[in-house]
């Protein structure tokens, strides 16, 4: 193991961390406000696709990220109307959105670019790395942004009156309502914010990290982000750590698979299960201490 490998492993972990952390941090805000959403996988898919289209039209990866956030917000608005205003089930819309995401991206790649299953994002629509070494290891500006967003959201949630109100509508909406806080508005806003972050994460997949749009581009990251949110105990700073750990094991698995001394000892498929097994072990170990917000996933109807 030489220096460039360690640098590669570290930078790879940071790159893999971005979509999971952004989505988890959004999910933390949404659930702190009391709205469960399991449709992030679909949001990642759809914004990876539409974010690329927007980036290609605007000739800018950054516009693509913003476009992805906007697309995420639109989908979030559907979820928000159904759950917050119509008091519907919090889980079912997400299942529909996930299915829709998988269908729409596979359909869209063929309908829009005319290629089957995969589209390469042109250079002019990609985000340039901040730094790159001779071995192709690179650092994306989105990594820095992820750190900043996470810290800002943590500060907002726990150190400002706005955060207190968001947490109050998820913890005790009746009391919040009695104090004159518009429960529905705060919940809806939290859903939009969470979906926008997931949307930015989705666009990051295509216009930055992977540089391609594929039928399976989200690859379960929307769900891993939810696992990471539980792991974090609904705390953005811990979600940052969890996201990095997952990214690290994900990269480690790939790294071990590519190492000659591993060939023949353990089937590579076993190594590939590592990030999922680690997530399970960590979540199983941490729970008991972690407690979801009291009104998480429950519609609030004024008496």
């Amino acid at each position: 193991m030489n220096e460039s490998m360690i640098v590669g492993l570290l930078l790879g972990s940071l790159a893999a961390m971005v979509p999971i952390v952004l989505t988890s941090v959004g999910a933390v805000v949404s659930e702190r406000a009391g709205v469960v959403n399991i449709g992030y996988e679909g949001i990642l898919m759809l914004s990876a696709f539409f974010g690329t289209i927007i980036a290609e039209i605007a000739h800018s990866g950054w516009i693509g990220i913003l476009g992805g956030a906007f697309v995420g917000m639109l989908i979030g608005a559907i979820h928000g109307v159904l759950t917050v205003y119509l008091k519907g089930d919090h889980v079912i819309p997400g299942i529909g959105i996930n299915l829709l995401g998988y269908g729409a991206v596979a359909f869209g790649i063929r309908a829009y670019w005319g290629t089957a299953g995969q589209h390469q994002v042109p250079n002019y629509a990609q985000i340039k790395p901040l730094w790159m070494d001779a071995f192709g290891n690179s650092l994306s500006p989105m990594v820095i942004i992820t750190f900043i967003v996470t810290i800002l959201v943590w500060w907002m949630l726990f150190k400002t009156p706005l955060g207190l109100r968001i947490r109050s509508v998820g913890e005790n909406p009746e009391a919040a309502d009695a104090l004159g806080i518009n429960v529905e508005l705060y919940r809806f806003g939290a859903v939009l914010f969470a979906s926008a972050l997931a949307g930015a994460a989705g666009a990051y997949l295509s216009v930055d990290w992977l540089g391609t749009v594929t039928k399976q581009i989200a690859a379960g990251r929307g769900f891993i982000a939810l696992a990471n949110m539980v792991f974090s105990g609904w705390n953005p700073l811990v979600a940052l750590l969890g996201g990095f750990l997952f990214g690290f094991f994900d990269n480690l698995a790939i790294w071990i698979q590519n190492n000659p001394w591993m060939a023949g000892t353990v089937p590579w498929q076993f190594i590939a299960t590592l990030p999922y097994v680690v997530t399970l072990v960590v979540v199983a170990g941490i729970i008991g201490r972690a407690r979801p917000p009291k009104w998480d996933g429950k519609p609030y109807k004024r008496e």
Partner: protein
Amino acid sequence: MSVGRAYIKPLTESLLAILIGALIGAIVLWASGYSAVDAYKALIVGALGSVDGIAETLSKSTPLILTALTFAIGARTGLFNIGAEGTVYFGAIAAVAVTQYLQNPIAGMLGGILIGALWALPVAALKVYRGVHEVISTIMFNWIAVYIVGWLALDVFYNPKDPNSTLSIPQSARLHLLIPNTSLSWAFIVSVITAVIIFVIMWHTKLGYELRTSGQNPTAAKYGGINPKIAAIWSFVLGGMTAGLAGAVQVMGVPPGYAITQGLANVSGYGFDGIGVSLVGRNHPLGIILAGILFGMLNAGATQMQQTGVPLEMVKIIEGIIIVAVAVPGLADLFKNLFRRGSK
């Protein structure tokens, strides 16, 4: 409320959701420059226009009915079991493995059912003893199943004569075709019988009563002497059994290969689609049979639709919209009010 009326509202709501799915699907088709009329015509002709088409529809609905039961059993118990996807892979590989030694269809199906129950145990244990939410654990286990079954298919039960598939189910262990030269086999009958068995268990046995009570009102269940932990374990195990069976019949009853194809292609996606089938079927075994046939129709017709130039995945978009529409609370009332206002 009479029994009949209790069924009418969910039925109308599901039908409305299907209508909305078809309408928005048509808009998507139109916006992408395809002819919605041609596409839908091909879809329906492909799925229902011939004996072959109908056979294909019922064949495609078979695994969906079984995986939908997994989700429905969970939902009725107040659990969100989305682990059918990975369990299907295990059921399929178990059927391949078992029938190499015991060459009869019952052994293959039992193998699938048994491994389905076993694969559900860690999920149940994590839920009951560590409080790990089943959405998180089942998703992680689905990914673990992708790799482990992938390895079993590639390195253990591979077909030495065909690098693209596993060993085939031996002739004598295959489920016979109901109509020769189609893909419709006894597997469909097995899935319908299973739905009826689950209906009887859930609505006409003490176990089913306990499961449903702990789903509807956990507090009341506890006071009624029902152990929620045992109910949860039973729910995951029963659900695992039907999903394992889905995988088994998917390789034992579908010509021509009677094997798992490369990348688990012919056993993938059924677990997730089953969730949609269950929701549209209102988490009720009888509704699931109907919804399963509807989704089977969409999947069977998709191939014909593809010939008009529309990508296959269009049906996934329609399915997704149907599920979002199902999530609209009081959809039927909403429409009734609109209609009343309109006629005034």
